[in-house]
């Protein structure tokens, strides 16, 4: 009986599966990002993260242990020289899976799996993201009346561009306290404005 055995076999037998995971892990270590199906990505995550953890102790023994899984000299070298240094202060969670949609042909759910520390884009934004949260919470009280005004305008005038022009003006005094935050806030408003327009149009359509 297979009660409680949650391992995903991925439709393969053990040697096939191990070989595939080894190949995928080598690709991930080499390229830092792999496009695959969600099921494989999740299996790969469980496969590769313990190996990366193992690589933090650079000894002949741990190198040989990793080689047993990866079966590639180049990948092991890259892992111990580059990756292990970069992830040194991260306590696990080295990979990120982002779903990207469905594959043509078999409609399989596709995703990216990537090494977290090699995506500078996401790292940077993650830092600003926290500050964005704070600002939104504080600015909401001031922003609320402005939003009402713009909503009334859009209903009356049926002008799509109106909120984009007006909102920055209305919110400027509230945001003036944090000057460095202001340009980002404007950017947010611009993003939000088209959303509102869409919702308005839908309401009218219905």
């Amino acid at each position, binding site marked *: 009986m297979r009660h409680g055995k949650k391992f995903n076999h991925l439709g393969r037998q053990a040697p096939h599966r191990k070989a595939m995971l080894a190949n995928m892990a080598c690709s991930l270590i080499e390229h830092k990002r792999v*496009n695959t199906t969600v099921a494989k990505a999740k299996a790969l995550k469980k496969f590769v993260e313990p190996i990366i953890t193992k690589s933090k102790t650079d000894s002949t023994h741990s190198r040989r242990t990793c080689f047993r899984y990866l079966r590639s000299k180049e990948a092991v070298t890259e892992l111990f020289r580059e990756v292990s240094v970069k992830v040194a202060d991260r306590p696990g969670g080295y990979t990120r899976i982002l*779903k*990207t*949609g469905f594959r043509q042909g078999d409609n399989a759910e596709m995703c990216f799996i990537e090494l977290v520390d090699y995506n500078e*884009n996401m790292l940077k934004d993650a830092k600003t*993201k926290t500050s964005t949260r704070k600002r939104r919470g504080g600015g909401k009280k001031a922003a609320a009346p402005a939003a009402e005004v713009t909503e009334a305008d859009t209903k009356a005038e049926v002008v799509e561009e109106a909120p984009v022009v007006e909102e920055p003006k209305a919110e400027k005094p509230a945001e003036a306290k944090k000057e460095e935050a202001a340009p980002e806030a404007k950017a947010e408003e611009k*993003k939000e404005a088209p959303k509102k327009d869409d919702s308005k149009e839908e309401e009218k359509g219905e």
Partner: protein
Amino acid sequence: MAHPKRRTSNQRRDKRRTHYKAVAPTLSSCSNCGAPTLYHRVCGECGFYRGKQAIQKEVAL
């Protein structure tokens, strides 16, 4: 072993299937470009995910 006594008639089969319905996906709009996107998915139009450039568009397709 148990066996079906009667062949399922076309009518009975089709009536059973009246409850099989396609469900529309729940969509949100991308925070960057406003295109309709699925939740928990990278935007297919611009490659943004949760306000960040998750992937370059060339890579996405």
